[in-house]
């Protein structure tokens, strides 16, 4: 009797657990008959109605095919007319646009010059969800003049050759005022249905899309921050495509020639921003030795399993043919690095294994932040590599903005970051934001009047051939002065379930859904 009661107690304890594990087997997953693709993405929307013009919401809505810009970027990072049929520069500050015919908003109304003007004016309205001071600064629009229903003129406050490129920025999308039923009214091949902050983004096909009816009925973008979980979700059949697949897993698939693999170079650069105004890295020879001591190939091998990136020489990847200065090289040459350090008098005089500068041991504090898996291993490999130069390196992870503050105060010497160097395809954004002496993100304290002049000249030059010469020189200055050290350009790797069609990785990482995107079966 005693035994039976013991068993009963034991069994009752396990029932709830077992019921949980066994019960669900009978749960029937009611998949819709519609042709919907589920895509795992690493980041989700920031709110339940993310206006594509605010913050960087447009990056997601552009990828989801909801919002569109007047001008787009193709897969070679070249401009193409998107909502605009044509555009021309009528004076250094004036750009005339003609809208494409038969473009409809998701509520069925036609795209007109008036609605384009209204959409851009909302960027400046502090009480509107579209308020975007970053884009206002980038575009620097003085006035929008309507000529007729399909023609209008943008006038900028100053001559700005980057203006047209800035219009490719996904937040510069043309959006009509939303309603309760249709909170985001764009022009893309897919209509916004719903979003949950940091979780998912749902769309459905827009049959009246100007570029033709989409092959899919809808898209679900699910935010799965952990790449391993996303890979398992693909295997489970819960998602059809993982946009940012784990690099080691991708390398394994590649080795065994399995899986529906996609890979594409992006403009995302992993780089160190250095504190050059004071501290040990005010010494240019030390910065040069550090760059020579970084085995970028090894870092890519260790941090990205050899498949997730290309060692960086300049700030732009070689695939960005319009702007990259191919003459620049950033080789790994430890003998030369040691020679530079010795010649600069940065020697280990007290035999403690650490070189000194001004009588003090060279101690470099390197920091990065969570959010991108490759950052931490890059930091770790860097520590090992720089110790070979006789430098003491301390690494830590922090919060992004706090790291910037620490760099500005000289509390750390190098901040490892990952930025899209040309999200709008124009070369000005990255150096102007980080290296201009007045730039908001110049936490290096770097001040090079020659570079400032060149950057200004580059913004005012409209001839692409002459601009290329200017930005070639800018890249040379960066490679020589090293206020920032490029490490690698990220290659995005994606894996599908074998049924995904019409998917390509865009170098700007801001395009994904198209009418051609499809799934078999």
């Amino acid at each position, binding site marked *: 009797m005693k035994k039976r009661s013991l068993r009963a107690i034991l069994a*009752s*304890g396990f029932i709830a*657990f077992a019921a949980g594990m066994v019960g669900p087997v009978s749960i029937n997953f009611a998949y819709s008959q519609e042709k919907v693709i589920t895509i795992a993405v690493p980041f989700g929307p920031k709110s339940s109605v993310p206006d594509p013009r605010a913050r960087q919401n447009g990056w997601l809505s552009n990828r989801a095919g909801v919002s569109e810009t007047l001008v787009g970027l193709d897969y070679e990072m070249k401009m193409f007319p998107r909502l605009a049929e044509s555009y021309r520069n009528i004076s250094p500050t004036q750009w005339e646009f003609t809208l494409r015919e038969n473009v409809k908003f998701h509520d069925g109304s036609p795209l007109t010059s008036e609605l384009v003007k209204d959409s851009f004016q909302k960027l400046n309205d502090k009480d509107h969800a579209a308020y975007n*001071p970053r884009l206002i600064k980038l575009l620097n629009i003085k006035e929008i003049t309507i000529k007729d229903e399909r023609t209008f003129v943008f006038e900028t406050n100053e001559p700005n050759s980057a203006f047209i490129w800035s219009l490719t920025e996904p937040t510069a999308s043309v959006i009509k005022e939303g309603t309760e039923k249709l909170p985001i009214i764009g022009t893309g091949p897919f209509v916004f249905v719903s979003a949950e902050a940091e979780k998912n983004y749902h769309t459905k096909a827009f049959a009246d899309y100007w570029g033709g009816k989409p092959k899919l009925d809808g898209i679900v973008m699910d935010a799965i921050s952990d790449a391993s*979980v996303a890979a398992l979700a693909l295997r*489970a059949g*819960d998602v059809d495509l993982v946009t940012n697949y784990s690099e080691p897993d991708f390398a394994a698939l590649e080795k065994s020639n399995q899986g529906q693999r996609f890979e594409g170079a992006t403009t995302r650069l992993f780089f160190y921003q250095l504190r050059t105004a004071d501290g040990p890295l005010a010494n240019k020879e030390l910065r040069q030795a550090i760059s020579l001591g970084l085995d970028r190939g090894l870092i890519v091998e260790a941090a990205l399993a050899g498949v997730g990136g290309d060692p960086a020489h300049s700030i732009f990847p070689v695939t960005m043919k319009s702007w990259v200065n191919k003459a620049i090289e950033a080789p790994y040459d430890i003998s030369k690095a040691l020679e530079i350090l010795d010649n600069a008098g940065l020697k280990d005089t007290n035999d403690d294994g650490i070189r000194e500068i001004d009588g003090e041991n060279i101690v470099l504090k390197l920091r990065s932040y969570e959010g991108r898996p490759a950052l931490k291993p890059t930091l770790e490999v860097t520590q090992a590599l720089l110790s070979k130069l006789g430098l003491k390196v301390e690494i830590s992870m922090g919060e992004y903005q706090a790291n910037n503050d620490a760099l500005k105060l000289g509390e750390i010497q190098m901040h490892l970051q990952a930025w899209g160097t040309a999200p709008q395809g124009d070369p000005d954004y990255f150096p102007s934001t980080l290296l201009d002496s007045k730039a908001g993100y110049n936490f290096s304290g770097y001040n090079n009047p020659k570079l400032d002049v060149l950057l200004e000249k580059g913004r005012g030059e409209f001839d692409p051939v002459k601009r290329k010469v200017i930005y070639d020189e800018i890249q040379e200055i960066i490679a020589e002065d090293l206020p920032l050290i490029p490490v690698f350009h990220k290659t995005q790797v994606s894996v599908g379930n074998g049924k995904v069609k019409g998917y390509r990785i865009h170098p700007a990482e801001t395009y994904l859904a198209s009418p051609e995107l499809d799934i078999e079966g």
Partner: protein
Amino acid sequence: MNNFMRVAAIKIVSLLLVLFCVSFLTFLLYYYAPGDKALAIANARYIGEGSASAELVEQIRLETGIDRPLFVQFYYWAQDIIQLDFGVSLISQEPVDEIFVSQLWETMELALSALLLGMSVAIPLSLISVWKPKSFIDRFAIALSSIGAAIPSYWLGLIFIFVFAANLQWLPAYGTGSLSHLILPASTLGLWVLSSQTRLIRSFLLEASTAPFLEALKIRGVGSKELFCRHIVRHAFVPFVTMLGLELAFLLEGAVIVEVVFARGGIGSLLVHSVMGRDFPIIQCIVLFSAVTYVTINSAVEIFQWFMNPVSQQR
């Protein structure tokens, strides 16, 4: 009863005092956060990755009163908090209380399911383990509590996804929305509850079984079954309730790894996203909630303990 009212009143006063101190400390966390807060708010609210203009930062400085003295800022902040007005998220511009409540529901769903799963096994397992020392069940309970404590939730979560979602395809690998989405995360967290609670309940029971009064009861002829069920279990009940309360409080905020692994919402992942985005109003709301939860549950448990203890009632 008078005695009870007196104890309850003291507890409530001390609870309010602790809450005031916690609120002040929470505010200090924000006040002394490194960096220019106006710039951080500008970045969180409008910019993302980019540079905020000096004018915009200045405008935010004026608008938010960030430069005012500490106590003035705290006064206005506390005034809003008392009215349960936590402001709006700097990023989404949605009311913090609405964001928080929706995430709290998901966390409660996960925490309570895990607690139910874990406890429904931990209680009978511990009882049998102590009732039958050195038996197979006892050894199993010891092994389970040790293994369970040693397995990281992240790893276990991945294993569950690998087995039940990727291979057997019985359950969804991630997400929320149905009972099936809850099973794997609740089991992951439930196993942790099971192991920690089995260890604790077992030790409470073992401690109770060595109490001196048991000898007296034995001499008076009380049977071993009655001794176990009426006296040992009851004696172990008070520390068990204390731990149960704290366990629930921990689960409400400690489920972050499970939430992230299973791409669920919840307070833990909300806190992580908010810290990354420097969304101060949400951070303050969650920190305050955590403190209030711990303090309230602790006080409730203390009152309960007083109620259960005849000796303290006579004082």
